[in-house]
């Protein structure tokens, strides 16, 4: 925490957030690089875990079957984009979950409260996870292979993709914030990641496989398919109707997550921790 001197906390709001975040990345990298071999190994293993679903997709298609309406490269593109999105979110934002979990449990959350900056943001930037670079790289590789075997997307598709990819990151960050908030009450729950992992699986497959009712649930109510399926489908030019409603839901989700977090933090601090 020594590197976080008061100097850095000055400056206008938005710029300050970005500056601090970049600082967090630099610090995380510097300390991670001390054990380089360990970093490479850990990144590789994290990547392996995320390759299981693409592997299963591969095995399904090589057995001669398929997801109706989607060829193997289209499905792999969805899963590759999922890896990139999740990798970025994990690296830059998900630290808040683990950080809040351990500081609440050990009673050191008060140290974070003493900083002249948003506590939520502090919990994120002090726990940047470099090991997810492997996942991002793997995702780019798989998406690259998929795109190579598919007709080139048009400019409008690419622009649309960029927009929805950013929305996808927002959805993931919302989940991180909500998970972080639950930890205030449900102290020491390390299975919160498991719950999250289970739910996000629905975003790694073409949403056409879900029943109508379920599709509405995971696209408009809790926009899980926004995480990878919607951006991928836009890039492929196969976007379904209602993607803008899903984008709206994502914004609502984000705002709600912030509200919930601040509520839980207030409750926590008023009780004296």
């Amino acid at each position: 925490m020594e590197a976080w001197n008061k100097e850095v906390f000055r400056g206008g709001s938005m710029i300050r957030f970005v500056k601090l975040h970049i600082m967090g990345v630099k610090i995380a990298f510097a300390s991670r690089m001390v054990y380089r071999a360990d970093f490479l190994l850990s990144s590789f293993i994290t990547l392996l875990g995320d390759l299981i679903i693409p592997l299963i997709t591969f095995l399904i298609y090589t057995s001669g079957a398929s997801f109706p309406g989607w060829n193997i490269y289209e499905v792999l593109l969805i899963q590759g984009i999922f890896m990139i999105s999740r990798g970025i979110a994990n690296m830059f934002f998900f630290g808040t979950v683990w950080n809040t979990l351990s500081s609440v449990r050990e009673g050191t959350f008060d140290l974070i409260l003493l900083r002249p900056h948003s506590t939520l943001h502090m919990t994120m930037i002090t726990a940047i996870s470099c090991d997810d670079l492997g996942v991002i790289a793997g995702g780019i590789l798989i998406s690259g292979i998929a795109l190579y075997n598919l007709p080139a997307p048009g400019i409008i598709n690419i622009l649309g993709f960029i927009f929805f990819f950013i929305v996808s990151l927002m959805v993931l960050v919302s989940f991180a914030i909500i998970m972080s908030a639950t930890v205030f009450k449900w102290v020491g729950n390390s299975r919160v990641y498991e719950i999250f992992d289970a739910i996000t699986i629905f975003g790694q497959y073409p949403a056409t496989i879900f029943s109508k009712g379920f599709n509405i649930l995971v696209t408009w109510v809790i926009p899980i398919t926004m995480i990878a399926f919607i951006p991928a489908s836009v890039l492929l030019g196969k976007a379904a109707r209602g993607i803008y409603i899903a984008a709206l839901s994502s914004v609502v989700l984000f705002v709600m997550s912030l509200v919930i977090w601040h509520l839980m933090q207030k409750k926590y601090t008023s009780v004296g921790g």
Partner: protein
Amino acid sequence: MIKTFNVLKATAFVTYKEWAAYRSHMLVSVFVGPIYFLVQYFIWSAVLKHQETINGFTLEQILMYYGITMLVNYCIMDFAGWNLQMLIHTGKFLTFMLRPVNHKYFAFSQKIGHRLLGFCLEFIPVYLLFCFVFRLNLVPDNFIWTLISVILGFVMMFLVNYTIGITSFWLIRTGGISRMFLLIRDIFAGVFIPLSFFPETMQKILFYLPFQYISYVPVRVFLGSYELAGKSYEISYIVFLQFVAVIVMLLISEVLWKLGIKKFSGVGA
């Protein structure tokens, strides 16, 4: 003999109590499990929309496969490897060397206590959910063989996990490597996809690895037909092979343990 049994009883009881303090922790499985199963339901319903079978599985059969795999997992999973790794890395393992107790036996007794609670809080609720909400017909083809096979799977899972934990005597800065072992274990035990989906050469190798005997075999025994690498065996025969595999794994773990203790005690250093 009675003394040894008393150690098992005391340890199992203490572990049961320990985990009972984390009831809500365990109950998360009742939420997560069915979610995973729901995904499988959608995936395979879509994949098998325009064809009857895939790799010999009908929709009903493959859903059964995933459902049974999950239920078997609730019966046989443990943290033996993690626990041992933690004990060694924190140095607390010392407290077991200072007492007249066999740690492997202690860890196995812990598993019994832990799974006893898991049976109540994980297996039964999910079983009921599968039966009544997902309408799966969860009746084993032959109850006795299934029971034996699951018990052998219980022991096998313990031995494999414990052996991975033993590597902590040498791999001090692991973190990563044991995670990788556990991932490999699950992939090759058929947890993510039935082993018969892998390329045939791969299947031939998988036959001789200990992993299939953890989960794949008990699940197949439950379903009533075993098949791997293009070969099909009688249930009695594959359960017998499972038994042999357990014995082999036991011997391997004993050898590795002796080597590990030697290192820990600084023999020859």
